[in-house]
């Protein structure tokens, strides 16, 4: 049983690490800000989620586990908000249809 849980932790955390790696690759290689943001939030949400999932069997139930889940939820909330704000701050690129960014255009200071 313990071995199975340890194996689960190793696999899940490794998968999480792979998502972080892929997200970082996307951040470095994707062509524009919006796609880079997309790669980054994927890494944060899924990567951190898998790491937290993998660590759950290793911590004290229920307080330690709930704290880990809270960390993930807070990171989700922060990541989603920052992604939205950065996305809205991006000036629409000349080649792309700018209708998704109407919210950003109306409030340039």
């Amino acid at each position: 049983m313990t071995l199975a849980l340890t194996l689960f932790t190793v696999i899940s955390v490794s998968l999480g690490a792979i998502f972080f790696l892929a997200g970082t690759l996307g951040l470095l290689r994707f062509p524009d800000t919006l796609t880079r943001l997309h790669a980054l939030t994927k890494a944060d949400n899924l990567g951190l989620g898998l790491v937290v999932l993998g660590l759950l069997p290793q911590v004290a139930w229920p307080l330690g586990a709930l704290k880990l889940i809270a960390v993930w939820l807070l990171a989700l909330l922060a990541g989603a908000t920052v992604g939205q704000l950065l996305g809205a701050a991006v000036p629409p690129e000349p080649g792309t249809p700018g209708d998704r960014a109407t919210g950003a255009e109306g409030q340039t200071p």
Partner: protein
Amino acid sequence: MSLALAADAFLALLILGLAIWTIAASQTYGAVVGFVAYGLLVALVWVRLGSVDVAMTEAALGSGLTGLLLLGAAAHLAPLEAAERQARPGPWLRLLVGALCGAVTAVLAAVVLSLPEPAPTLGPAVAEHLATLGVRNPVTGVLLGYRAIDTLLETVVLVPALVAVWSLATDPAWGGRPASPGPRDPGSALTLLAQVLPPAGILVGIHLLWVGADAPGGKFQGAVVLAAMWVLVLVAGLRRPPALAGRPLRWLIVLGALVFIVIGLSGVWLAGAFLAYPEGLAKPMILAIEILLTPSLAVILGLLLLGPPVADRGPGT
């Protein structure tokens, strides 16, 4: 080489690389971003060294709050930056500065390398007498028991620091409100965050303060989280910054320092020395200091971020 050592070595190299990148960054803004990331990595190092208290302070104050202050400074300096880059100091001055910085690093390295092998420590003596203070977190015990004068000074110094920031205001603006840090935009994701996060954040701030007696945490870390929640609400434009002439606000600012000084002075009378706690009353007194300092620190840190008051439409109230 063990895995943990490899990870530590990688972390150390990463920090060195980031430090060099931060110094070499041509834009002030980029340098500040580098500095914030650097602070977070240094916090990881403190965790690896087993100093979770220091790690939290570094992440909250050294990286988060200082980073925000520096970002504000970078935004203010941005228009002047290009001219400043034209007027680079001469090669001799730069050489001199580099040599002096190198000398400081060399001396620090020499000091660290020449430390005696079992480093002299008061740790066992502190651990032995920690029970008389009634707190189980040795860091809190040392900060409020043995080095209370340092803690007093570092909390009181925030009040003159805030007055110094305020004194940058123009005469008509004195006592008015600081500039609102963000426009109100009901459709923004920030509005949602500023409505959803504060309940959880306030809970975390109070939790950090409360566990400080037994586990890593304490008033400074808790106060930073509370200040962050307040500033978040202000940045989202949900509330206006307060008028700085308000009597209750000013009392709140000095409350923590006043309580600390009064308890310190009462030690002269009750226990024979400034900041000495009378037998059996140490824990309640430490608790009173921590609890009453927290709101003061939160308000001061938030107001430091908001900056000096600006001229308002109405007369200063």
